[in-house]
Structures are given as structure tokens and as C-alpha cells.
């Protein structure tokens, strides 16, 4: 293209061009200001879309979770009525805090809970319309009478029928069994397989339902063939004794906490009910007589080392009891009673308790490799009472090792005086009445010296904190 003479002067063109540019710039500016208010830009639209997609995705996932929650809620609702809270009657005062101050580590003002290490409320399962409640054996050691709290908030009292400690189960019976909630149906179909989703139910002492969802991880058998079901589900204290249900709300088993395993397991319902039947059966055949011993089954290793094939091992002999008078001792193995072979511990209990009082009972026992025969005169069961067994004490189990920190508390028996005082396992008793202590024997010696009726001041160390506790009177026995 060759240049041609313009029709007008360059000024004319400049003005037109500038005018056009001005119109454009102004127009773009106005348009943008309008559009910003009225429309989305592409970027914000995209962002809004992405947000929406994300919301949609999350809402889908949320729906899935909510669906699970609904299933769990529906299943637990079916069984909820029969899940009760079990607390021992005669509980102690609620936990109280104790704060200690210091002037060298102000950031470390400390607060300890002086709770009574009372057995927290556990749960139970209403078994039938007669008012029988299956629960964990852990609670049974603490009382004979229990308060039962139902889902609807009603409270009833139940008595202990019996305990089966090896099975970790106890059976209670309600005093009144009118207007009981319906008992959930039992899972009747095929046995529960590993991988199945199960729900643990429990009720807190406040009456709230506890729910834990998980799948059945493993089924293990112990030496005697008992099955323990391991669940991948939370095990809070109040779940102990409660039922395990499947997703249809049917009963599958009972939750129990196994201290030996440090784990909560599930006992299959059929087995638990069988155990309940034996507890009931044992209870119905009321004992007539006693001789004052405690005994146990012989383990395989024990049989081998003691070179016996069967029998019941005496673990304790009550003071002033017929057994003591007859010369029975701990470590004796009873192999025959009244000419009948004793194969298990259970058989011995029938042999002693189900014969009339004042009967001469002939026992064959193995003691230190020799076989001996002993005659014991059975006493009436009415005369027997627990205080004769040396079990009552302060409730402390102390470490036998000496330590510069003091005497370590290994365990505190639930509901005991020590527990009421607020002592916990792991605490150290540093000093009593200003005298430093290093071992359990020092403590026992000191207790014999101190006046029994006078109050005592115990210095306790818990973690990094030290505080004093006051005892109203001395400790007669640990």
C-alpha cells in the first residue's frame, strides 16, 4: 500500500482516533462496573462451580456417614430398652479436687482428683421377663445389692444371684419384675463371622446410652475352649456388662472387660446364657454345710509339677474353721472326697456343700508328694460367715520393694476405705505423721506402734504432685 494524501488534516484524524479510544475506555469501564455487580466473571463462576462440586461430594460422603449413623441408631434403638446401668448400692462421695500450690514453678499449679476409685457403673442386659440381669463379674465383688437404671429413667433394685468369676459374668435379679421393657430378640441365624459389623451397647450411671461400632476382628479360644470375640470397637468402662448387637439390633453377646488381657471382649450370647444357667443352678442348690476352705482347679503345668493327674488345690484355709481343726493346709490337693474322685474344683464344691452338717467327711489329699487321708466334720452353713476369712482390710496392695520415694501402691480394692479416701494405684505413700516411709513393712510396723484411734496425716506423692490426706483412725490391716 502506498500512502495517499489524507482527506483531512492529521489533527482531524487524531481527534477522531482519540474520541474513539475514549469511548472504548469509558465503555469498558462502565461495562465492567455493571457486569461485576450483575454477573459472574469466568473465574468466579469456575470457583463457584468447584465449590459446588466439593459441597456435592462432601454432602454425598456426609450422607454415607449419616446412613451409617442411622443404621447404628436404628439397631441400638431396638435393644436399648434392655440395656441397663448397674451401680453398686451404697456408693461413696463423688470425686473432689485437691489443688496444691508452689512458689518455684507457678506454671505447675497442680490439681489432683481425690475421687473414690469406686467401680464405675457398669451395664447389664435384661435377660427375660422374670427380671434376671446379666452383667460383668467385676461389679459383683463390690456389693450384694445394686441399683438398676433403665432407659426410660426408672430405677429399680436388684440382688446378686451369683457370680462366675472365670467367665467374668454375674447374674442379678430385680426385686420387682412388673412392667419391664421388652427383651430384644437373639440373633438366631448363622454364627457371627469375623468381619461382621457389631455394636456394643452400654448405659452410663447417668442413664445415657453408649454406642460403639466396630467389626469382629478375631475369635480366639482359651485353654478350656471358651471363645473370646475381639471387636474393633471402643471399650469404655460403662460398656462392661452391656450387650453386643448386630446391625439388625439382635443380641449377639455380652461385653466384658478382661483385666488379664487388658481388653474388652465379647462373650457369645449362647455361652453367656449357659453360664447364667449354671449360676442360677448353683444358687438354687443352697449349700447345707461348710468346712472353711478356698480352692481352685489344677492347671496342666501344675499337675505336671505336682505329679498329680487331677484334684482340687486348696488355696486358703479359714481360721477356726473345721478344715483348720482337721489340719488342712493351703497347697493340699484334694483328690478324693467321701470315696469319690475329685476331678475338678466344681466337683469338690458339690461334695462338701450338698451333704448334711455334722457329717464326717473323708478327704484323700496329696501333700508334698505323699497321699494322706483326713476326716473333717462339716459345720452348718448358717454358721459360716465371711469375716472368718482374712479378707477385710484397708484395701491397699503395696509394693514389697523399698523405694526412696516411699511405699508404692500397687492396687486399691474398689469400694474399700482406701478407695474412699482417694488413694489410687501408682501413688506413693511418702510419710505418715511426718515419719518417712520406705517399704511396706515399715508402714505395717508403724501402724502397730501408732495409737489406733488417733487421726493420721499421710503424705501422698502422685506424679509430680504431693499432698496430704487425713485418716480418721489407724489402719488395722492392709
Amino acid at each position, binding site marked *: 500500500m*502506498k500512502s*495517499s494524501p*489524507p*482527506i483531512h488534516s492529521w489533527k482531524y484524524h487524531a481527534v477522531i482516533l482519540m474520541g*474513539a479510544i475514549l469511548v472504548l475506555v469509558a*465503555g469498558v469501564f462502565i*461495562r465492567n462496573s455493571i457486569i461485576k455487580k*450483575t454477573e459472574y466473571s469466568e473465574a468466579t463462576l469456575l470457583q463457584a462451580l468447584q465449590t459446588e462440586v466439593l459441597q456435592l461430594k462432601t454432602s454425598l460422603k456426609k450422607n454415607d456417614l449419616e446412613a451409617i449413623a442411622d443404621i447404628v441408631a436404628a439397631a441400638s434403638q431396638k435393644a436399648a430398652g434392655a440395656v441397663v446401668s448397674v451401680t453398686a448400692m451404697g456408693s461413696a462421695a463423688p470425686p473432689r479436687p485437691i489443688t496444691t500450690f508452689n512458689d518455684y514453678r507457678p506454671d505447675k499449679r497442680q490439681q489432683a482428683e481425690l475421687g473414690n476409685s469406686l467401680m464405675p457403673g457398669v451395664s447389664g442386659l435384661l435377660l427375660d421377663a422374670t427380671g434376671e440381669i446379666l452383667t460383668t463379674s467385676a461389679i459383683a465383688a463390690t456389693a450384694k445389692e445394686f441399683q438398676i437404671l433403665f432407659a426410660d429413667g426408672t430405677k429399680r433394685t436388684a440382688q446378686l444371684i451369683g457370680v462366675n468369676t472365670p467367665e467374668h459374668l454375674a447374674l442379678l435379679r430385680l426385686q420387682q419384675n412388673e412392667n419391664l421393657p421388652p427383651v430384644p430378640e437373639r440373633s438366631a441365624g448363622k454364627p457371627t463371622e469375623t468381619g461382621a459389623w457389631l455394636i456394643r451397647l452400654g448405659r452410663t450411671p447417668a442413664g445415657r446410652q453408649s454406642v460403639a461400632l466396630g467389626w469382629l476382628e478375631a475369635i480366639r479360644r482359651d485353654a478350656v475352649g471358651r471363645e473370646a470375640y475381639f471387636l474393633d470397637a471402643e471399650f469404655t468402662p460403662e460398656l462392661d456388662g452391656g450387650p453386643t448387637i448386630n446391625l439388625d439390633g439382635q443380641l449377639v453377646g455380652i461385653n466384658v472387660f478382661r483385666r488379664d488381657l487388658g481388653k474388652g471382649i465379647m462373650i457369645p450370647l449362647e455361652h453367656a446364657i449357659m453360664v447364667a444357667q449354671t449360676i442360677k443352678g448353683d444358687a438354687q442348690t443352697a449349700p447345707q454345710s461348710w468346712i472353711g476352705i478356698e480352692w481352685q482347679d489344677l492347671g496342666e503345668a501344675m499337675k505336671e509339677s505336682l505329679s498329680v493327674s487331677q484334684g482340687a488345690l486348696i488355696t486358703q484355709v479359714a481360721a477356726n474353721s473345721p478344715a483348720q481343726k482337721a489340719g488342712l493346709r493351703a497347697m493340699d490337693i484334694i483328690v478324693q472326697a467321701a470315696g469319690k474322685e475329685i476331678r475338678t474344683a466344681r466337683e469338690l464344691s458339690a461334695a462338701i456343700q450338698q451333704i448334711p452338717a455334722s457329717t464326717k467327711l473323708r478327704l484323700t489329699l496329696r501333700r508334698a508328694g505323699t497321699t494322706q487321708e483326713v476326716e473333717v466334720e462339716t459345720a452348718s452353713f448358717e454358721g459360716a460367715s465371711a469375716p472368718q476369712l482374712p479378707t477385710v482390710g484397708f484395701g491397699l496392695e503395696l509394693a514389697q520393694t523399698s523405694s526412696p520415694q516411699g511405699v508404692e501402691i500397687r492396687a486399691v480394692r474398689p469400694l474399700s476405705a482406701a478407695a474412699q479416701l482417694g488413694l489410687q494405684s501408682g501413688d506413693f505413700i511418702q510419710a505418715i505423721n511426718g515419719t518417712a516411709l520406705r517399704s511396706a513393712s515399715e508402714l505395717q510396723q508403724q501402724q502397730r506402734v501408732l495409737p489406733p484411734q488417733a487421726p493420721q496425716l499421710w503424705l501422698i506423692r502422685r506424679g509430680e504432685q504431693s499432698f496430704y490426706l487425713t485418716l480418721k483412725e489407724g489402719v488395722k490391716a492392709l
Partner: protein
Amino acid sequence: MTNVLLVGLILILALIGGHLVKFVRVPEVVGYFFIGLFLGPSFSEILTHEVVAAMEVFSEIALGLILFSIGAIFEFEHLKQVGKQTFYLTLYVMSGTIVTVFLTLLLLGNNWQVALLLGVIATEISPIATILVLRELNSEGPLTETVYNILALNNVGCLLVFGVATFLIRLIGGGEAATPLFIFAGKEIFFLLWGLIGSIAFGMVIGYVLALWGKRIEEHGEVLILVLGMILVVVGATHWLGLSPLIATMTMGATLINLAKESQHLFDVLGKTDPPLYAIFFVLAGAHLQLSSLLVIGLSGIGYTVARVIGKAIGAYFGAKRLAYPDTVRSYLGLTLVPHAGVAIGLALQLRSIFPQYAEVISAIILGSVLINEVVGPVITRIAIGRAGEMREEHPASFEAI
């Protein structure tokens, strides 16, 4: 099938289609269009909606090129001679169309809003179809010249009346009650003015750049690159700025022709280079449409199609008579302006966001009518030009010329 292969296929099939329809004295563009229909969703489904959308860029380039060349009509000296006359004639044709279509559709039982919107959309004349027929026929004469002149003005006028009509309907016919009237009116007027004045300003600015830059380039190839590049920039930028690509490219052509007289040859060069693009344009236009849209066109659609032709003929007749145009113009101008296409569909689509309540019925009518017009329009134009005696039988460019 790759898109490149598809483009090749489109071109070759378009060539064959264009040749085939010539045997029955039908313009090439109709042949291209038939090929598009055949390749599109109605029949073979080779050109799916996705492919058509991907190739849309060709259509935009083609439209930009044709409007750019139409812009050459706005040469000042040419305008001085025919400007006033053309302006009034366009006014006649447009009002004839609007009134006829409006009344026809009212009579067919449509509400006034639909009738009015269809009336203003009916003013649209497909510049590309019309011009390609004129080019193919190598026509020359007062009718041909008048058609070129009117097409240029009609484009601006069509967008203007469309804007005014939508504005009116919103104002009277109860648009969004939520928006206060003055805000709404201000916004509407701004967009209307922006679409016209902004497009003109933008086309002018780019036209100036093109003219100043073009003077420094001597080589033919480079000039072509520059012009094509600028056209694409304008077409693309108008989308971004919310302007009319048609008016902007037209203004660019108008600015260039007035600033650099010799650029006329540039327009000629472009006219010889762009046929493949137009072939693709019409094939895609065919692929856009579905035969099934004819089934739902209804009585209103047929009425619209017929009334539009009659309206243009009446407007052209009285306008030409009043403005003392030659007899051939008076008799045949209306028929020459029948082609109706893409921009009409664009306007109908635009209605979806403005008046969703009318958009469906209008879309159905327009889509069906455009389908008819793409086939019938060029044929009518060809007949009209032939009757007016402006057809020159020899081909515009032979192989020897290339």
C-alpha cells in the same frame, strides 16, 4: 477422526456438493449447506456438536472477513452519492418486514411480545449467503450495488431494532419486577449503545492501526497476514468486550477504505483467498441445524417465513418507488434479501437469557425458518438477480487467473 481430516473432508465434500447443485441452477452455498446437513446430527453424525463447536473459529473468521469487505461500501465519496437514499431504503425494507411479520404472527395467535421479537429478528439478512450468491453469479448492476449498500446498513439497523424491541418489551411487557425501572433502563440503554457505538469505536481504532501500519508494508503476503490478524483480533476481542463482531469488523473495513484508497485491491485479494472459509462456514451452518426442527416449526413458523419475504418485498417495492430507484431494484430487491441465517439464530439464543418465557417458541420458529431460508433464500436471490438481468455467466476467476 481427527479434526484436520474432518476439515479436509468438509472442503472436498463442499466442493462436490457445490458442483452438484449447480446442475439444477442452485447457488453453491446451498450445496455446502446440504453437505453440512448430511454430515451433521440429522444424518451421519460425523460432525457432532463438539466438533462443530471446535470448528466454530472458522465460521467466526469467515463472518469477520465478509463483514470487513462489506465495510468497504462506507467509502465517503460513495456514501455521498448513495448514503441518504440507501438509508431510507433500508428503513423501508426493515419497517416493511417488521410490520408484516408482526401482524402476521399476531393474527396467528401469538402474543405481542413474541410477534414483535420475531418481527425484529426477521429484519436480519444473511450477508454472507447473499454476497456469496452475488459473487458466484459475478453480478453487476444497480440491483447488485443496492444489495451491497443495504446489507451494510441493515446489519447495524437489525441490532439496533432488536435492542430497542427487547428494551420496550421489558419496559411495557413486565420484565423483572425486582429491578427498579431507572436502573434497569440505564443498564439496558448502556448495553444497547455500547453494542453500537462501542463496536464502531473499536472498529475505528483498529482500522486506524491497520491503515497506518499497512502503509509501511509493501509485500503482498505480509499485508494479508496483517489484515487477517487484525480481523481475528477484532472478532475475538468483541466477544471479550461484549461488542458486536459484525459492526466492529464492518467499521474496520470502512475506516480502512477511507484512510487508504488503494486498499480496495486488498479487499479484492481477500475476496479471492477466502472461499474455503465460506465453504466451511456453510457446512458448519448445515451441521448446526437439524431436520427435526422442521417438524416443530408449526403454523407460526411457516407464517413467519412467508411474511418475512413478503414484508421485504413490500418494503423494498414502496421504498424503491418512493426513492426513484430503477425498476429492477423495485421489483427484485426484496427477494434478493431473503437469505436468513446465523445472526438470527444468535439473536434467538440471546433471548434465552433475556426472555426465557418466549425464547422456546421463538427458537423453534427461527431454527425451522433458517433451515428453510438457507436452502430457499440463495435460490430466490439467484432467481431475482437473474430476472433483473445482472447475472454475468462467465466465472469470476478461472484456473488460469490463479
